[in-house]
């Protein structure tokens, strides 16, 4: 059953088109993450789903009900904001119950619902406090509680964790994942943190300049990116992009540091290799890249090694216990099917079948 459906959503501010035709189908219980750089229109899309602004054109339907023109409060959608957006002079309990209070739900029902939501989010001991007396993490829990208590068909989150410090962000991320699994709710979640996207999403929509560049599971987005943009957006350290030359030997990478014999692209391409696809042990069928160690950064569990190849560099994530000295020669091996090829001009990923 399809829950949320977006058809050809466009939004213009004056002459500037911010969203350029968004199409999306969301199944019930899905966790969709909208991922993209700042200014690509994520919040704009979210505010149109919530009804706080109207699309210039296009249809929004939720459970077969057309939502265009429906007041936000009648949409069965709850939103959680980056800034928490709690009412500063109301107690936590009233903050959580505010939506019910405004809908005229009677006091005892309301109190029961508030307590229930507060327990799920472990803020039931804070109900009498004011938002100003809470920590950032607690405030975000209250904000989520305010959404939860309304039992909406759809949850919208706009970068809910980006105001939290690193440790708390990690904690709340797992908490959100747990909540989603426990309650089975449908979520649209905006972030520009790719780790958040990878860990939380059942599907990711990578947005760029008002369009969805690719929609897929985290695994698809990471391993089979539709374009160089998506490939570069995902992964840390970022994917290595290397220029190529077509010669009679095959496709040369990095001024001849390696040759891909089987690849015969028709148009100019660049190749992308994820840092973790580069190994130091030879294996059958491996492509070899020979260079010298340029820079070593130990992160703890692994070391990020920059290797100079002729006139360029690649980054490899290698085991931390591998002894490496600056300037030493090193051979890196990569499986051919882990080399992605992108059209040098359009950036689209191309399959370069051998002739």
């Amino acid at each position, binding site marked *: 059953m399809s829950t949320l459906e977006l058809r050809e959503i466009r939004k213009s501010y004056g002459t500037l088109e911010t969203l350029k035709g968004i199409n999306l189908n969301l199944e019930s219980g899905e966790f969709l993450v909208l991922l993209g750089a700042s200014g690509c229109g994520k919040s704009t899309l979210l505010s149109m789903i919530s009804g706080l602004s109207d699309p210039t054109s296009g249809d929004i339907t939720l459970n077969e009900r057309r939502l265009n023109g429906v007041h936000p*409060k009648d949409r069965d*959608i709850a939103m959680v904001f980056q800034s928490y957006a709690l*009412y*500063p*002079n109301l107690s936590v309990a009233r903050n959580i119950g*505010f939506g019910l209070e405004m809908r005229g739900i009677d006091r005892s029902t309301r109190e029961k619902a508030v307590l229930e939501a507060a327990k799920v989010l472990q803020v039931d001991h804070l109900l009498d406090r004011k938002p100003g007396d809470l920590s950032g993490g607690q405030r975000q829990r209250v904000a989520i509680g305010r959404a939860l208590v309304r039992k909406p068909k759809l949850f919208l989150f706009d970068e809910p964790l980006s105001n939290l410090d690193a440790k708390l962000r990690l904690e709340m991320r797992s908490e959100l994942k747990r909540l989603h699994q426990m309650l089975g709710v449908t979520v649209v979640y905006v972030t520009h943190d790719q780790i958040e996207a990878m860990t939380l999403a059942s599907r990711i929509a990578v947005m760029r300049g008002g369009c969805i560049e690719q929609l897929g599971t985290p695994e698809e987005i990471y391993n089979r990116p539709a374009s160089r943009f998506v490939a570069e957006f995902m992964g840390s350290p970022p994917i290595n992009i290397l220029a190529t030359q077509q010669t009679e030997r095959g496709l040369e990478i990095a001024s001849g540091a390696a040759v891909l014999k089987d690849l015969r692209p028709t148009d100019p391409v660049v190749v992308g290799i994820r840092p973790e696809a580069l190994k130091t042990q030879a294996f059958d069928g491996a492509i070899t890249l020979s260079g010298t160690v340029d820079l070593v950064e130990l992160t703890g569990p692994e070391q990020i090694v920059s290797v100079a190849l002729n006139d360029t560099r690649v980054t490899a994530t290698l085991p931390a216990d591998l002894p490496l000295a600056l300037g030493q020669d090193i051979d890196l091996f990569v499986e051919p099917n882990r080399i992605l090829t992108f059209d040098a001009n359009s950036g689209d990923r191309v399959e370069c079948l051998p002739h």
Partner: protein
Amino acid sequence: MFSERMSPRALLLMLPLVLVMIAVIGWPLVDTIRLSMTDARLAGTSGEFIGADNYTKTVSSRNFQSAFWATMRFSVWSVSIELVLGVLVALLLNQRFYGRTLLRALMILPWALPTVVNATLWRLIYNPEYGALNALLTQIGMLDAYRSWLGEPSSAMTALIVADVWKNFPLVALIALAALQAVPKDIRAAAISDGANAWKRFRYVIMPYLIGPLMVALVLRTIEAFKVFDLIWIMTRGGPANSTRSLSILVYQEAFAFQRVGSGASLALIITLIITVLAVAYLMIMRRFAGEAR
């Protein structure tokens, strides 16, 4: 008040300021207190000590009581109208519409005018022979014959209040507008999707951000209104039949027109006391709201 970190050095550094304050505020105040206990006159005798006589006479005099109530009427009405009007105008100017920036700039104008100019302007408007108000009201048929707005006890005070509101509501509107712009967009959005109507949004979303700055405006305006002198002096001189005579005008008349400096001083000190009480009361309210709005 003094924190435990107030070191002798800090006190020493503040000494010059303290000395200046004593010279320009402390000494005149002490001298006024001394004067208020004498029967000194503007010209001639420096006065004999007569104790609290001036005070008892002043407080029980009909002049003082009528001036006190005139001042109260003026302050309460003008400040309340200014607050309500200021907030309404601020809410309006906080909406998005064409020409908003121009209107915001224009709104400041009355407040930027010197009181003297404003008072003269309104005296012209109220002029019984060629004033704009008479012309307007007769032309739209609301008035049969020209009236002397400032010359009749029934309308003089109202006319003054209107003039004061016109000049001072922009200040309140400006303060309220600044406060409105501090209301986070997300909280407004959250309240809308929570289903709060316009009144509930004002009450729960906007009010918490408005109340502190509004309190400041209230304190400022009340104290100003209570001291009102120039506006009334130019428009009515306290008349007709002393119906618009404020406390400040009474002090002036007592000390300079009737040359009774001693009793004028006692009157001035009574006003100072009333204003101090007002200021302290407001400070306490403000402190409470500051604690709440956090």
